[in-house]
């Protein structure tokens, strides 16, 4: 089955409703939740994740229940055999082939309404300092010391020597990249995939480096910036 990797890079806050096989009735549980946190239940978008053992008719009933409670059901996820049910009901099917990004998505991802201009920081960024450019790119002018951490939801550009930790696309943006004039990072991370300095090709140490995520292999690739 073809899976669409881009679906993993979702930029919306979605809750996954995990529905185990032998659970208490969904309607009762959801009503109780709504009493506890009415505002939350009215705001959220939900993806239903039935257990693999649920027969299609139970899923149909559950979808009806969610509709009756006026909850924003976006689609189904879970085991592949339920994809047919999603198609029948006219719901989106969200493939959840890998764990970490999915679990992040429910808590941290926030839609970026308008693209902000990049956050510009003057270096040196010292050891122990953390910088996070939320929903935008990060530009550092000067060096980033060992022990410093710089992060952005977008790209990270370092006009200087980078010895610290760098993370781009921290909310799962697989297209985010890192650009660095003198690359000696102790750790790089792109959309949750990371690698330490020992995996940086030797010939690129201290070089002008561009780091990106290979879309098909999901591996971090290093290249000379030319």
């Amino acid at each position, binding site marked *: 089955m073809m899976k669409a990797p881009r679906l993993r890079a979702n930029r919306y806050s979605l809750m996954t409703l995990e529905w185990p096989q032998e659970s208490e009735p969904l309607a009762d549980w959801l009503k109780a939740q709504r009493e506890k946190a009415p505002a939350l239940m009215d705001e959220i978008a939900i993806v239903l994740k039935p257990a693999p053992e649920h027969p299609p008719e139970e899923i149909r009933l559950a979808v009806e229940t969610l509709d009756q409670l006026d909850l924003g059901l976006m689609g189904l996820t879970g085991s592949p055999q339920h994809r047919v049910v999603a198609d029948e009901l006219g719901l989106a099917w969200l493939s959840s082939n890998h764990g970490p990004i999915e679990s992040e998505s429910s808590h941290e991802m926030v839609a970026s309404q308008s693209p902000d201009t990049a956050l510009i920081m003057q270096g*040196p960024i010292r*050891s*122990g300092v953390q910088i996070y450019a939320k929903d935008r790119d990060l530009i550092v002018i000067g060096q980033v010391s060992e022990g410093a951490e710089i992060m952005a939801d977008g790209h990270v550009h370092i006009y200087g020597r980078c010895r610290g930790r760098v993370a781009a696309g921290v909310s799962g943006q697989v297209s985010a990249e890192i650009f660095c004039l003198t690359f000696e990072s102790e750790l790089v991370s792109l959309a949750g995939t990371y690698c330490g300095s020992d995996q940086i090709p030797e010939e690129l140490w201290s070089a002008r480096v561009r780091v990106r995520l290979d879309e098909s292999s999901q591996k971090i690739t290093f290249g000379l910036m030319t």
Partner: protein
Amino acid sequence: MATVVTVTSGKGGVGKTTSSAAIAAGLAQAGHRTVVIDFDVGLRNLDLIMGVERRVVFDFVNVIAGEATLNQALIQDKRLENLSILAASQTKDKDALTEEGVGQVLDELAELGFEYIVCDSPAGIERGATMALHFADHAVIVTNPEVSSVRDSDRILGILQSKSKRAKEGGKVHEHLLITRYDPVRVENGEMLSKEDVCDILAVKLIGVIPESKAVLKASNTGAPVILDQDSDAGLAYSDSVARFLGEDRPMRFVTPRKQGLLSRILGGGD
């Protein structure tokens, strides 16, 4: 208007107190009225290095708590008339240092006509160290040429430019790098970071390199700042550093290995 100079490092045992004593004495020798304050409340050492341990009656914490006046607590150095010492308390802990209290004492020292207030910071990044940093106009970062000391110095520089009063008001604390315990022979053998390596990592202007020297321990034990020992290389290197701090341009000394004679090489002496 007094200038606050904080001597700090992050890591312990690199020579902050030795350097504070030397810098304060050097500034006083250059004709500036100077006071040196020990911020290491609970583990005071500066009084020993300055040789005034028997003259401490009231201390910094007493002044902050209003138990003594500043004039009662200030100890006039017997060798240099421009130099005074404000000792730390050995019985209290660092929570006794409040931002308000420290600020008030520094203001009073300025009113008394001191030009330079040298703050000897404790190791670490906790209250004592952050209080010593808070009011700094200048910071002298003391670093040994080894990786852990350099990294801790980098950390302290980050704190300095984010948590100090000047930084919070949108300004910048002037940074000066002082490398201590430098051994040119070991640098040449690749066993120690070179001064170029340290400057490259920290990206701070170097004001001095103090060679590893027996004179430092001797000075500590006799209670005289090593800068007063002008027969020693460490003393001369501190004099150069203070001159550079005050804006003078001097070449670096004691940064290349001394040529050893055949005899001393055979006998293994040389210091």
